[in-house]
């Protein structure tokens, strides 16, 4: 009897610059090294039955990613976590893990909010203007942005996805916190929000120097935020 497990895992500093595809492949290899009884798809080119909630851009770290994995039979979650922990590369750790029923909705389908922290190195003199830039963004009713992808350009309103950005001073600059809505029709990347803050609101920062970390993924309704592991 196959069994499905949901894991909360990290993408730490060591693997910040690893792409989503490479990150997934690293986890698959760790699963194989740990000798967990992973289930494979049928067919000519079998692949491990493993699914992620949402892809991260290259350069973005995460404190809480979610993945579902199917095994050929049930295992004690604690033993499974330990086996995997011994084989995961530096920067990838299992924070929580629990069995989920096969009928559980796919992660991709339920996650609708992503929280991010953006660390910006700033000279001391830039702190005031930076705070003002963030305030102006928060006060704006609509923030048009041209989103470009290989298929073409399309104008979106940043505010549809991010209503507010909060700013906190740090030792060497500023930390921005934001929650980004993920909708069936699309979303926006934190790097794009940062670009809008720099280009349209005169945030005095070098976007290349920013370090973006995802702090959480959630299933949110009007009032509450639940981790996909607690559904």
């Amino acid at each position: 009897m196959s069994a499905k497990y949901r894991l909360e895992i990290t993408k730490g500093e060591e693997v910040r610059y690893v792409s989503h595809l490479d990150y997934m492949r690293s986890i698959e290899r760790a699963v194989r090294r740990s000798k967990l009884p992973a289930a494979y798809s049928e067919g000519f080119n079998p692949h491990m039955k493993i699914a992620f909630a949402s892809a991260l851009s290259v350069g973005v770290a995460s404190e809480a990613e979610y993945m579902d994995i199917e095994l050929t039979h049930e295992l004690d979650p604690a033993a499974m976590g330990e086996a995997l922990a011994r084989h995961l590369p530096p920067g990838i750790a299992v924070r929580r893990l629990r069995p989920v029923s096969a009928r559980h909705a796919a992660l991709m389908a339920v996650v609708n909010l992503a929280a991010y922290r953006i660390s910006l190195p700033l000279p001391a003199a830039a702190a005031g203007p930076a705070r003002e830039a963030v305030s102006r963004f928060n006060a704006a009713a609509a923030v048009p942005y041209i989103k470009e992808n290989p298929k073409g350009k399309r104008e979106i309103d940043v505010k549809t996805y991010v209503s507010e950005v909060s700013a906190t001073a740090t030792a060497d600059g500023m930390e921005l916190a934001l929650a980004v809505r993920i909708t069936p029709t699309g979303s926006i990347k934190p790097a794009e929000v940062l670009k809008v803050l720099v280009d349209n609101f005169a945030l005095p920062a070098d976007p290349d120097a920013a370090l973006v970390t995802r702090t959480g993924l959630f299933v949110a309704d009007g009032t509450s935020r639940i981790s996909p592991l607690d559904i």
Partner: protein
Amino acid sequence: MIKIPPAVLSRVAKPARYTGHEQNCVVKDSSRVDAAFALAFPDVYEVGMSHLGLKILYHIINRRSDAAAERVYAPWPDMEAEMRAAGIPLHTMESFRPVAEFDVVGFTLQYELSYTNILNMLDLAGIPLKSADRGEQHPLVIAGGPCAFNAEPLADFIDFFVLGESEEAVDDVAAAVADWKRAGKPGGRRGFLARAAAIPGVYVPAFYDAAYNADGTLAAVTANHPAAAPVVTKRIVADLEHAPYPTKPVLPYLEIVHDRIMLELFRGCTRGCRFCQAGVLYRPVRERKPETLLRLAQELVDSTGYSEISLTSLSSADYSCLKDTVGLLIDRFKDQGVSVSLPSLRIDSFSIELAQEVQKVRKSGLTFAPEAGTQRLRDVINKGVTEKDLEEAVGAAFRAGWSGVKLYFMIGLPTETDDDIRGIAALAYRVLDIYREVKGKRGARVSVSVSSFVPKPHTPFQWYGQDAVAELERKQQLLKSLFKDRSISFSWHDAHVSFLEAVFARGDRRLGEVLLAAWRRGAKFDGWSEYFKFTVWQDAFNETGVDPHFYAGRERTADEVLPWDHLSAGVDKSFLEREYRQALAADPTPDCRRGDCRVCGVCQGLGVDIIDWGTSS
């Protein structure tokens, strides 16, 4: 320790090339060992990480308590520009320490067009490019690999070369460095080089002088130091069974060129294709036992989690226990989602049977290398394959469900005529016909890939003058005009690249200045078509007054002193000469591994034996 700023990493392509932390990498405090090696691959990370030789060296050095090996690859030009702008020196991936702080920097020489990257990496490391300009504080710059068998074009830049298989030699070199350092570096760099020259297989170019005749040909390369042997002979591992094998290779995050387990079945090849340098350099055949391979495969699966085992060697279908080994491997690993693949196939139906066994996916094509279009020319190059072999193999492939076939050929081979070129097209059309005969319908896809022949040192064709670029291009166009069927796709290599390869493959010390001039003019990553600029090289030849045609296009006489005559692969020059004469007569030489020794000299000269488990069982 060097810290690369996030702003740099976010501006370059594939930043994971530079951030390290890969699983299984060995991080020692290299300042606390006696011999710290920076193992350098003069190409980008994905290429360098795929190379088995460096994995072996990394493993052997790191298992010593007195030595450490770290890795360094050529930064892609976007990263190089960032490094130069930010003043970041070339550094290793383990400790992020500058390469200039290591005791030894070792380059592997896999292809001639990586030479400018060596200069570029030395420059990025802040190490003087020429050996003569290095001081006591600089690392020893060493090199090995197939191109070391003609070391002369790099003689100005490399302190010493190691010829042949390095499993044992690298231990000798590491021990010599450690001893010398512990003794307080007696005699300085030159003192160390004298010690190194006493190690079998080590060639110290500064201990030799080159003299030239009035016509520009080499008069002699003579030793000028008592420690320097008149001829340096390659190192070889007599017993591969017990040779160390890297079963915990560094596991990349980034997808690399060969992103799978590499299981080396055997070393060497005795088929004796007359164009093939590897066939000479790695003689004789030495096989591993199936049970050894199974053990190594298990260790590799356990340490990497890779989903594919690739059976590598110069000609994997020649492994005497191949069928048994493939069966054992499939049985052992099929439940773990690990597949087995055979990258190089000989043209026969036995191979198809095996390919069928290992390959669950039918959509990928099969590759065959007839090399030449006519039987006469295949006899000249001693390919040992007939049109009937090809027909049977292709027929078997089509019956087994394949519909795509890749065919590899060379043009510019000795004695080649336009009929041989037309023969390439005829073979491709024959493959289409076979599909129709087997399947009763059209639908085969044939892709024909044609490279240009490069005469290589230590081969029977080392004396042959390469076709001029214009002639190679004429032959490419002739062939192109013969392909009218859209089921056949045709691709060919830039003839200028092959020309430059030929210049450096058979070059002498005078090419050092050309290399330097080309690098100063911006040459790097010459093996990558987007960076290869032939005009840069033309300017470099003009500036230095060196005629490239003297090296590439000139037929050499049997009595000419060759720039690599003092470097020996163990195969006698007289054997190569005999093979060249037989080639011109289209007279084949059979494989020596099952009796019928043609006395190439390797087994006798180096005291090794062919090891072929299929004959003993």
